[in-house]
């Protein structure tokens, strides 16, 4: 049996099967990204915090746009070469296409690492500092941990096991025998604790053979004290608190969300010189605004754009007297690729002053969440498309010799997909980088 119209087009529809298939598939892809873009609009309109603008590196984004457009051209050339039965040119153009895909992904990787190593920290009064954390992501570090109490019905105490900084977590039972926390042993423990009537049922306390050190992000903790901490799943560990603060090199202040944008915790931590410069910077922009729109009676505090320039300052803070007026506005773009982080002022923040902190991962804000979801899914499409096209290049010779038209069809279909991936980026770039 043979399926008709795998290579030649059906006369009345004018299409071969795979072409119908790919257009349908692309229709569903449009709905997929359409759903994501609608989500973006929904989140942005409904955001109860200033939506980040201009926080991505436009130059890298622009280069990636060019790279993808170029690859869309070369993939057509590859297909045309096949149609003209020029195998070598086909391989050449296809290689350029794949090279573009690789370039795109490498640049993407740089952008991602930049974001993921960069932190934002919200003080409890709403002011924000951004920068690099030297002490690692672990806020709370507990030393000399010797015992762990956890609920065995919920499985192994993963928050402890996955956060060990030093030492090896080997558990002992009552009789001092080493135990292996597999499923069946956990069940035995649970039953034992139930028999002994320990409340809550299933909860056991195990000792460690040797003391270990654990660290944790604040977000995984319910509470902690000098003698121990409780993870959010109820697991209790005892030990000595070694660290309850974080050191951070600050490369930006953002006080828009603070009750008083010119006097708040972020500025207090950063000290007088920077506070001084920050206030002058803010005042400079507000004055400028008032001057410019003097006759219109706008309230500067209602203007999101002004607030963004006035109450957001890139560090090291520029000395206003030495900087020309025109360059002050440009506080957008990231400088993470610039050399040396020593130039940024360093602060040590106590945990109790912090409301929330995270690297610029999806957890930081809905902006980063949708940024990573959109670009991540797009990146996945780039990888899949490149794999398919690469397969047609590396393993296509046999089919080329047997039925070149069939291979050309396949490349056409793959190329259509590739154009779609390109098109998605053409939407992504302005939406995420420029708007």
């Amino acid at each position, binding site marked *: 049996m043979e*399926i008709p119209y795998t290579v030649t087009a*059906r006369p009345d529809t004018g299409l071969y099967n795979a072409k119908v298939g790919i257009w349908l598939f692309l229709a*569903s892809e449009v709905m997929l990204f359409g759903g994501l873009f609608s989500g973006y609009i*929904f989140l942005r309109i409904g955001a*109860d915090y200033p939506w980040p603008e201009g926080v991505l590196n436009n130059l890298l984004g622009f280069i990636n746009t060019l790279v993808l457009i170029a690859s869309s051209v070369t993939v057509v050339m590859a297909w045309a070469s096949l149609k003209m039965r020029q195998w070598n040119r086909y391989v050449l153009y296809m290689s350029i296409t794949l090279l573009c895909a690789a370039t795109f992904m490498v640049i993407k990787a740089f952008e991602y690492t930049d974001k993921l190593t960069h932190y934002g920290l919200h003080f409890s009064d709403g002011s924000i500092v951004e920068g690099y954390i030297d002490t690692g992501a672990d806020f709370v570090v507990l030393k000399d941990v010797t015992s762990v109490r956890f609920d065995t019905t919920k499985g192994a105490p993963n928050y402890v096991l996955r956060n060990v900084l030093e030492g090896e977590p080997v558990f002992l039972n009552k009789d001092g025998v080493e135990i292996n926390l597999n499923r069946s042993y956990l069940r035995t423990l649970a039953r034992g604790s139930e028999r002994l009537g320990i409340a809550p049922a299933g909860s056991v306390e195990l000792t460690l053979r040797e003391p270990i050190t654990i660290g944790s992000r604040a*977000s995984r903790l319910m509470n902690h004290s000098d003698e121990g901490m409780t993870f*959010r799943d109820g697991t209790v560990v005892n030990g000595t608190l070694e660290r309850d603060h974080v050191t951070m090199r600050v490369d930006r202040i953002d006080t828009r969300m603070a009750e008083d944008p010119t006097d708040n915790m972020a500025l207090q931590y950063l000290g007088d010189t920077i506070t001084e410069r920050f206030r002058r910077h803010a005042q400079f922009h507000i004055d400028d605004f008032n001057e410019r729109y003097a006759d219109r009676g706008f309230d500067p505090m209602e203007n999101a754009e002004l607030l963004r320039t006035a109450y957001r300052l890139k560090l090291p803070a520029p000395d206003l007297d030495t900087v020309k007026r025109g360059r002050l506005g440009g506080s957008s773009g990231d400088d993470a690729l610039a050399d040396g982080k020593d130039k940024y002022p360093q602060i040590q923040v106590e945990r109790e002053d912090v409301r929330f902190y995270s690297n610029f991962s*999806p957890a930081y804000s809905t902006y980063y969440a949708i940024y990573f979801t959109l670009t991540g899914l797009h990146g996945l499409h780039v990888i899949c498309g490149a794999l398919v096209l690469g397969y047609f290049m590396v393993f296509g010779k046999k089919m080329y010799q047997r039925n070149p038209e069939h291979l050309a069809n396949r490349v056409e279909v793959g190329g259509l997909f590739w154009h779609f991936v390109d098109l998605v980026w053409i939407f992504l770039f302005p939406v995420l980088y420029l708007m």
Partner: protein
Amino acid sequence: MAGTATTAAPDHADTHAGDHGHDHHEHHLPWWQKYLFSTDHKTIGIQYALASMVFLLVGFFLMMVMRWSIAYPDRALPEAMAWLVEFFLGDRWLEEGRVTSSLYNMFGAMHGTIMVFLGVVPLGFAAFGNFVMPLQIGAPDMAFPKLNMWSFWLFLIGGTIMMASFFLPTGAAQAGWTNYSPLATTLQFVDVHDVFMTGQTWWLIAMVFVISSSLLGSVNVITTIINLRARGMTWMRMPFFCWGMLVIAFLLLLAFPPLEVAAIMQLSDRLFGSSFFLPTGLVEGNQHLNISGGGNPLLYQHLFWFLGHPEVYVLLLPAFCIIAEIIPCYTRRPLWGYKSMVYAVLVLGFLSFIVWAHHMYLTGMGTRVATFFQITTVLISIPSVILLTCLMISLWGGSIRFTSAMLFAFAFLPMFGIGGLTGLPLAFSLIDLQLHDTYYVIGHFHYVVAPGILFGLFAGIYHWYPKITGRFMSERLGRWHFWPNLIFMNVLFLPMFWQGMAGFHRRWYDGGAYFSQTANKELFSGDHWISGIFKADGAALTMLDLNVLMSWGAWLLAIAQIPFIINIFWSIRHGKKCHSDNPWDATTLEWTTPTPPPHGNFLKEPVVYRSAYDYSVPGTTPAKDFLGQGEPPADATAATQPSPDQPAPAGH
């Protein structure tokens, strides 16, 4: 079984009846390629059918346990049910043998999920669509046979993950089949040792697989219909079944991706700590969640129902498709209003994309939005009514053969009618304020799904079984299947409307006992004769007592499935043999193939000369009262010249 003896065999019947497996490659394939990793659309269709029927049984069992909790919240589960629950899930879900609220929630969520995504859609669209559609349009197989196989296996992987989630330390998902955030995100979230190993997370992962499977499947179905129709099979000669499948496939293709988006976003919320669906300041278990917030729970509902409403038509249309084939065949009359049915189903498909927010009237999305969706929702009932009316008029003046298939098809009409009509009041936000999230809604869609859709699917199984096995299903068992089903389904679902209007919430795990002070309205006073039947002690009959009645309906309904299960297996060997390839004297192309159809389906290239429902038309005789789509017209010269604008298939 009147009228099943073949009067005049169509084309190949006499030469090939009972002569199986003509295709030569088929003999060389190892068994696992032939039955397990098959690329043959018929095998895949049967695989889907078997898998989905197993899922339906599982979903049914969950419901029986829930119904116990509703009817007798303070009594321990019966021995057999308790044993099954403990055997599979361990003893922590029962409290002194009683169903705990978490078990109820878990079974409730999984009942809905399994029935909709793993049961009815795979059976209706994937199984019937796969088996019947390519045969009906005269194609040798689906356009992409390998992709077809992948669809099935993705579906099975998704289903397996869904089932496996029962055995996790947290148990399976518990946030309802709609899985609304923030509940679905924060459930099994803070208090677990590992967020990945939770039922809520696995639900999402399983859904991603199931969705991907549907997407591949729908691409395949549409491509096949567009490009692989046989010579002469013009659009307006295509059986209504295939039109329906085309529309369903488009619904799946375009409506499922937004749900995939929702699943990905919720996964990200759970695993990466983002806040797509979590608002600022969310508190869970007395502590502020350490999240950024800023997200929007309504976004989830929009994404879910953008799929959710088209999905209900994905559930419904296969039943319509099947019944549109069955009614003409057993009444020996052409389908009435074929063209208007086709246009109606196209309009229905389009409209179903713009009604979704009628599930969200109470979310505070605003009256303007609500008004828009009220209007579209009322509009969509027009094409639904056209479809139903055409089917009813098709009965008019027919000489009906009441086979089991026809009985089920016949009962579908009023049962779906009740389901659809009770949907109309829900369309008005004013009335929906009262009825939303009550048993009225449950009654509404169960009337559509159970005595409606399931009856349609049963009918289809009775109808096409002879094509698969070469034997009829037992008519006697078929009747034992039909009547109890019809009765117990109504016992189970009809009282839901009263309870709903009395304000019974759909998710009470004790059936309302906790609220009996307010919810327990009296139906019949103690001295009424109806109370006398149910209550020995002369007490009044109340709303809560309906719970017991309905639950008994549910359990007896389970027993009513036994004849069917026996019938399916028993008839493979012992059913009455068909003496032709076209035992029902039907017109469509699937009946012109050998039985069962070999790999590649047709022995010679099928050519289509006429519309799909030429029963009792001019040119037929009492002895042979139909003209098959593939029968050349009596005028021999025309027969050899199919219309010139029809392309010749390349690869036959």
